[in-house]
């Protein structure tokens, strides 16, 4: 499958935080979730991708072009949706559009008008008077209107109520229908990824600890529940993490076959959610 983004050995250091040799690829026509707790380095990575900050080492190629040498050509084809949406707040949606549209080489006003109606956005309202959900829709609208091939989104759903979040998720699904567009979005709301992501990249403390196809990752892991008596040294070795309570144990394993062989029918087995996987792995790393 064609890749639209290739990140190699990306490093960026600050006094109290660093991105440690990040590597990942994004496949064309997919939605990739970039997940991690607050402060794990998602925004720093995205800022490196967009050249808003300079990385210390490594290289980034987007749409087959070097992210530094071909910054302008790349940004012409990117749909960038940041957590807040940075615009001249005192302008109306139409005024802002009139300023932004001529900057893009492939701006399509018919598409803009179509999605403006579809997203029910008020063209004459000032940007500062929009709700957060509307701002996100407006950012997506601008990105769609210049025929962006790759959407890079930083926490687009954070701070939104479940209804609006669901709306946005549907929009993301629609975006990749033609398999020509690709979405890469960071989030700490894992339920969004369960609904929409094809691939997931897990980040914690500036390091990627797990990445791949969402369904494959979920299938390779299992949540095991049972009584405390089930646990022994042999079984514990096969767990990423175990949560013990007086009433029993719950743990995550990435070796389904081994755990089932050891514990047989004495435990119950469930498919983990993205949140389960994130929590168990990050807890293990904190310990």
């Amino acid at each position: 499958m064609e890749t639209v983004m290739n990140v190699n050995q990306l490093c960026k250091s600050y006094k109290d935080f660093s991105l440690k040799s990040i590597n990942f690829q994004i496949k064309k026509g997919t939605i990739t979730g970039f997940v991690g707790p607050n402060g794990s380095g998602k925004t720093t990575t995205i800022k490196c991708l967009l050249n808003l900050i300079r990385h210390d080492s490594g290289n980034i190629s987007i749409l087959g072009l070097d992210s530094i040498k071909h910054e302008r050509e790349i940004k012409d084809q990117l749909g960038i949706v940041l957590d807040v949406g940075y615009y001249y707040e005192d302008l109306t949606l139409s005024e802002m559009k009139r300023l932004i549209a001529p900057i893009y080489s492939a701006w399509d006003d018919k598409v803009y008008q179509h999605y403006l109606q579809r997203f029910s956005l008020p063209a004459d309202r000032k940007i500062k008077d929009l709700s957060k959900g509307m701002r996100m829709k407006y950012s997506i609208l601008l990105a769609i209107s210049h025929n962006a091939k790759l959407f890079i989104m930083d926490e687009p759903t954070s701070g939104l109520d479940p209804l609006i979040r669901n709306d946005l998720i549907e929009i993301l699904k629609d975006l990749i229908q033609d398999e020509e567009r690709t979405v890469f979005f960071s989030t700490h709301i894992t339920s969004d990824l369960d609904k929409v992501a094809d691939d997931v990249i897990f980040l914690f403390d500036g390091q990627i600890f797990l990445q791949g196809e969402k369904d494959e990752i979920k299938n390779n892991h299992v949540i095991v529940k049972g009584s405390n008596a089930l646990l022994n040294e042999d079984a514990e070795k096969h767990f990423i993490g175990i949560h013990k309570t007086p009433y029993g144990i719950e743990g995550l394993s990435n070796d389904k076959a081994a755990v089932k062989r050891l514990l047989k029918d004495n435990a119950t087995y469930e498919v983990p959610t993205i949140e389960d996987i994130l929590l168990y792995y990050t807890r293990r790393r904190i310990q």
Partner: protein
Amino acid sequence: MKPQLFNLVKMELYSAKKYLMWYFLVPIIYPALIRYQANLSALSYLVCIALVGYILCTGFAQSDEKYKTGIMLNTLPVKRKDIINARFISLYLVYVGITLVHILSKTILHFAAPHLYDAMNFSVIPAGIVFVSLFNAVQIPLYYIFDIRKSGIISIIVLFCLFALIVHFLEQAWIVAILVKMDTIIINFSLMIVAAIIFLIASSISKIIYKQKEF
């Protein structure tokens, strides 16, 4: 002008449209306050330009802070050097507008009440251009190095020192002797060259600083 640059200039001016209207009140009101006095009249244009220059630079900086313009502009397909060029061009365009309004205001006042107001002294305009170039040369690079508060204070200190040095320099007997002998056209031409050099140095420094800037 390149289309991208033109669009960026449009963005800069459009973003400041709310405040620009007020800036243009200065060259309308200010000449009316200064009655006929040859020295003051020449000075009125420079003070007017300095006043607008300060408010303008501060206004752009505040707008950057408020709207996070750095992030907004740098996510667009534009070159960083064009962002800086657009800022300088926007500032000079406003100065041109302020100068035209000032000339118009002075002319109207002079025709309405010639005993109270003198006509516009055009010979002061090249000095005004040097003045605003120096102003921008100090204010803009400092703003890109420091935040708006620090750069505001530092630029005022630097400008005071700079103008004190210039005045001291111009008071030197040998300089006065040279200036007296020189033709006005040559002085004005020299001032324009000085302004152009200052502009080029300031915009180059600003571009180098902005290229390294992180958002």
